[in-house]
């Protein structure tokens, strides 16, 4: 009897949780396949894929925005890794003077609400002609992703057994060669994880692009935002689903790379 009640409670709570987690997502899917939906109907009046046609036609804004988003995200990953891997290596393995201070400085962007910083960056970019350009948006995304990238890279490098490096040095490899051929490959899972994070963060980034990119650079989140505020819920819902594909897809991939101990090392 008590067991049954226990299961009822557990079931109820888990069911409630499932509703709260999946309800909003289900709503999104409903709007993606609705054509007409108004009060007082609880469900759409007519269903169909009419708006999918509109969203995916080759000249549509959404396809262009998707292309822009992927382009920006790709370049951001390259820029970020170019800066983060050396920094992560230094901070994770070597004795860097002022290590605490440097870490603090790199942590700073995470500690400040970035809306404020972004509209000032936009103003700065106006002055140097970077506002409304892809390069400008990439810089903003890269700066945002840099912190996570350095953290994860440093943690990945720190987790490598120094014995392996010593072994390479012992047989005559230089410091640089050891770093490139021994240490870096060993840290690859972590570096890849940080690349994925940076890519996703850039793809989903909204606030920075809202100030720096408008009106010339439209990323997918911006397109979704505009559609939503204009009341085009069907288009907003479909665009949102497109945005979700890489995120949910990578969720499965990331689970492989992010082990619990490495997570505990962060921060």
């Amino acid at each position, binding site marked *: 009897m008590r067991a049954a009640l226990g299961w009822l409670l557990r079931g109820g709570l*888990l069911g409630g*949780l499932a*509703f*709260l*987690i*999946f*309800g*909003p*997502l289900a*709503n*999104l899917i409903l709007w993606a396949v609705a054509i007409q939906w108004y009060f*007082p109907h*609880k469900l759409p009046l007519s269903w169909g894929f009419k708006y999918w046609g509109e969203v995916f036609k080759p000249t549509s804004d959404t396809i262009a925005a998707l292309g822009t988003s992927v382009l920006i995200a790709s370049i951001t990953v390259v820029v970020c890794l170019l800066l983060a891997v*050396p920094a992560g290596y230094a*901070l*994770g393995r070597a*004795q*860097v003077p002022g290590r*605490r201070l*440097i*870490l603090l*400085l*790199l942590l*700073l*962007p995470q*500690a*400040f*609400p970035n*809306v*404020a*910083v972004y*509209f*000032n960056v936009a*103003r700065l970019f106006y002055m140097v002609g970077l506002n409304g350009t892809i390069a400008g948006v990439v*810089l903003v995304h890269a*700066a945002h992703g840099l912190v996570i990238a*350095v953290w994860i890279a440093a*943690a990945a490098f720190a987790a490598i057994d120094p014995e392996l490096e010593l072994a390479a040095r012992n047989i005559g490899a230089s410091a640089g060669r050891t770093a490139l051929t021994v240490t870096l490959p060993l840290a690859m899972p972590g570096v890849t994880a940080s690349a994925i994070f940076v890519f*996703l963060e850039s793809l*989903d980034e*909204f*606030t920075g692009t809202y*100030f720096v990119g408008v009106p010339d650079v439209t990323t997918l*989140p911006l397109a*979704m*935002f505009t559609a*939503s*505020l204009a009341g085009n*819920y069907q288009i907003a*819902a479909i665009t*949102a689903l497109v945005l*979700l594909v890489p*995120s949910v897809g990578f*969720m499965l991939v990331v689970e492989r790379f992010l082990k*619990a*101990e490495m*997570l*505990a*090392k962060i*921060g």
Partner: protein
Amino acid sequence: MGILLLVAPALAMVLALFVYPLAMSLVSAFTTKDGAPSLDNFAKAFELYGNDIVFTLVIVSVSTALTGLFAAAIGGYLILGAHPTAVAILRSLYRWPLFIPFIVAAQCMRTFLAKNGLMNNTLATLGLVNVGSLSGLLDWRGIIVTFVWKETPFVALLVSGAMASLDRATIEAAANLGAGGLRILTEIILPQIAGLMVVGLTLAFVTMLSVLSVPIMISGGSPTMITVDMAFRVNSYGDYGVANALAFVSYVMAGLAAWIYLRRNVADGSGL
């Protein structure tokens, strides 16, 4: 010295794209359009948006508290839960919102939480509430719901990771002595992972202070978060002075959270 060269580019980026704009922001907040130092911007900011400033603090604090509560509960159940099926279900359920970007979450919630939205309609269909007495949650409460929805999985992930790497001996010892689940959670587990909880909640707090998409899309009018007011000030009037005054207020709020984090981490010398 060569080592520092490795770190220099990253530092340069932070300096150029963060420290310098931050300095610009501070200067702009504390001077008039002609460059004379003054507190006029702050006076105007408080006069027009004082209400929103209070509400921002309330919204983010309540959201952080709720997030901490739910994350601890989820983490606790994952560690202590006696029924493997229920634990497995919970583990697969709770992570979903983590990978939904804020802006998509805002769009979902916009229709879900509305007066005639899916949530109310479902509750009404199930007979759990009376439709006439319902109101939409599309105001500051909706912002809290969205924030908690988004941030709980993140903090819960950190927390459950930390709990998993704890020494089970302490837990089993307490269980053997007859302590119930809740007591083990609050007296044995949470104190040991308090550091990581603080980290996670601090990050969540600052993240929430930075979000623009959620308040713009969910809450129509006042009170709203000051991020919306900042954007409004900049976009509609080009008034960087007042916008930066509001920004300064948000820095102070974040500063509180960061100070707690620093005290915690630099003190025990843990972390990176």
